[in-house]
């Protein structure tokens, strides 16, 4: 089957007062129909910008993008604004990080949901409203028929995110981009929203790009994972594979900083240092200033994404030799799972 979305060598740069900022630097991945792809990384690594670029939602005045975003074979980077508007909210929909600010405070949720329908379907207001109600029920908002005329401020954060999900799914898109959909919510609500997304993904058959910095979310929801670091892809693999055989020291760092209930540790591991400035990234491998395994080659040569030998899909970009990687990965896994520790 042809992939639903093919992102090839995507580059996005912003013109800022301090110079050019390369926010996405040669990112490639595919999303198959009904697949859930996770994009993981620290704040500012370019994961959100990647998705805003796919949607064509970057500010055109100071942004340039190159590469390809093939959605069912059609390059969205070259699409007209009109065509992009047809795609947005209809074939590709997006939900955002902060549900408290993502809904317009002066319109009822019913109106905002109906707007999404009317923009893409030739339906009456009444039909649009009926569809809105249907979706509010699908995202399990209690007493939806009464709440449809409420304003966003009358909903809690979790309920607002449900409204956002309803709005995104209202036209049954083929692809849903979820930009940290649970980050702004409290932990119990997070679990509910993830559960809901998983359920809806099954019901609607929508493919999802799940942007997150939470490996726990990835483990629970995703089929494939892209680990991004400093605007580049560090590692890209099947979800089970990446948790069993992580190949990149940055991925190890992310895993080491995950809290575990069943293992007693004095302190959580952290990755030392800060993510590098995208205005002036380090030479060679961008992770080398923070990497405990840095070699001379890391400071000079940019590692390219190469396939990891094995049956399962797995790519990584690190100069470290495979033997060391296998050994360190095994050590890390032993430590975090408590086996043999």
């Amino acid at each position: 089957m042809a992939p639903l979305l093919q992102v090839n060598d995507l580059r996005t740069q912003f013109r800022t007062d301090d110079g050019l900022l390369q926010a996405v630097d040669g990112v490639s991945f595919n999303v198959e129909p009904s697949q859930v792809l996770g994009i993981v990384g620290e704040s500012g690594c370019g994961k959100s910008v990647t998705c805003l670029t796919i949607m064509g939602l970057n500010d055109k005045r100071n942004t340039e993008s190159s590469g390809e975003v093939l959605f069912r074979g059609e390059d969205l980077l070259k699409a007209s604004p009109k065509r992009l508007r047809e795609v947005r909210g209809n074939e590709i929909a997006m939900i955002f990080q902060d549900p408290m600010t993502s809904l317009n405070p002066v319109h009822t949720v019913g109106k905002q949901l109906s707007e999404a329908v009317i923009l893409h379907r030739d339906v009456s207001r009444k039909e649009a409203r009926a569809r809105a109600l249907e979706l509010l029920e699908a995202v399990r908002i209690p007493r939806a028929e009464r709440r449809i005329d409420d304003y966003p401020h009358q909903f809690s954060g979790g309920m607002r995110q449900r409204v956002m999900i309803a709005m995104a799914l209202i036209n049954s898109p083929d692809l849903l981009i979820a930009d940290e959909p649970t980050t702004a919510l409290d932990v119990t609500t997070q679990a509910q929203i993830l559960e809901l997304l998983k359920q809806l993904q099954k019901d609607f058959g929508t493919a999802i790009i799940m942007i997150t910095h939470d490996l726990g979310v990835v483990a629970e929801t995703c089929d494939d994972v892209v680990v991004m670091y400093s605007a580049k892809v560090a590692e890209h693999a099947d979800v089970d594979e990446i948790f069993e055989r992580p190949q990149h020291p940055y991925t190890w760092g992310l895993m080491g900083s995950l809290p575990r209930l069943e293992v007693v540790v004095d302190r959580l591991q952290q990755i030392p240092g800060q993510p590098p400035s995208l205005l002036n990234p380090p030479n060679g491998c961008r992770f080398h200033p923070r990497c405990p395994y840095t070699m001379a080659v890391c400071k000079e040569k940019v590692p390219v994404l190469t396939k990891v030998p094995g049956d399962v899909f797995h790519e990584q970009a690190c100069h470290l030799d495979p033997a060391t990687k296998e050994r360190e990965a095994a050590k890390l896994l032993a430590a975090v799972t408590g086996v043999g520790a």
Partner: protein
Amino acid sequence: MFQYLIRRLLWAGVLFIAVTMVTYVIFFLVPASPARLAAGKTATPERVEEVEKFLGLDDPIYIQYGNFLKRLVIDRSLGHSFTNRRSVNEEIFRAAPITATLVFGGIILVLLVAIPLGIFSALKPHSLLDRAAMTYVLIGISLPSFWIGLVLAYLIGFKAQLTPIAGYCEVFTVPEAATCGGVGQWAYHMLLPWLTLAIVVAGTYVRFVRAEVMETMNQDYVRTARAKGAPERQVMRSHILRNAMLPVVTIIGMDIGILLGGSIFIETVFGLPGLGRTAYESIQNFDLPTLQGVVIFGAIAIILFTLIVDLMYAWIDPRIRLS
């Protein structure tokens, strides 16, 4: 809601007392004799004393203030002018509509200019249009209204002869001695005053609309609207402007109240017999009852329009309506 209105009305009462008291105190601090002015230049000291007694100016200030309040509450009368004995009520009712037409016409012009200009400036910051608009804002804010009024009267009225230089025409009850009358003539004579008021006031609004639109453009819900596939026009109208105009409404309401209290400079420059001119003349003649009348009218206008703004706000902003 009802409780809120009661509270607002009580506050209006407090404000009213404060404003009238301050006017009284200031008036009596000024070293001048209204009685002497009223009696005329040739009056004898006895005559002046008589006039003083007649006008009640020989009583202590608190008695005078008490009498004023009593008259206002019981007779609903603002008293009579010191200078020509005309009823102040009548004078206010005659002058207020003139000021009101100046203010409302001017404000409409302000909105017609400031909203589009503010939006375009916000959409293309640092563009030529934006720079021109910001230069205009600086001019509008810095230059006094009477100067702009006089320059316009000179350039448009006198040099270009496009409008009258000054003067006012009645719309309905045209006096026999009047040289002009009717709606057309009235509007023709109001053009320059409206324009002057608009130029002076619009500057602030351009700046304000620009800032509000720019801030609202970066809100998350605007991105949500685009992510839904909404065209830019709809994003601007339904999502940006609807939110950006909330604070603008507040400022307009307050400005209308303030301007209704008298646009002294514009009315004086263009010879409009509105409240501003009435106030100006009553100050010159130490005509306390008339001045007090204008002050009270101004205070009521401000109180009223602030209340209207608050009620309107509750209507256009659902967050306030329900909390």
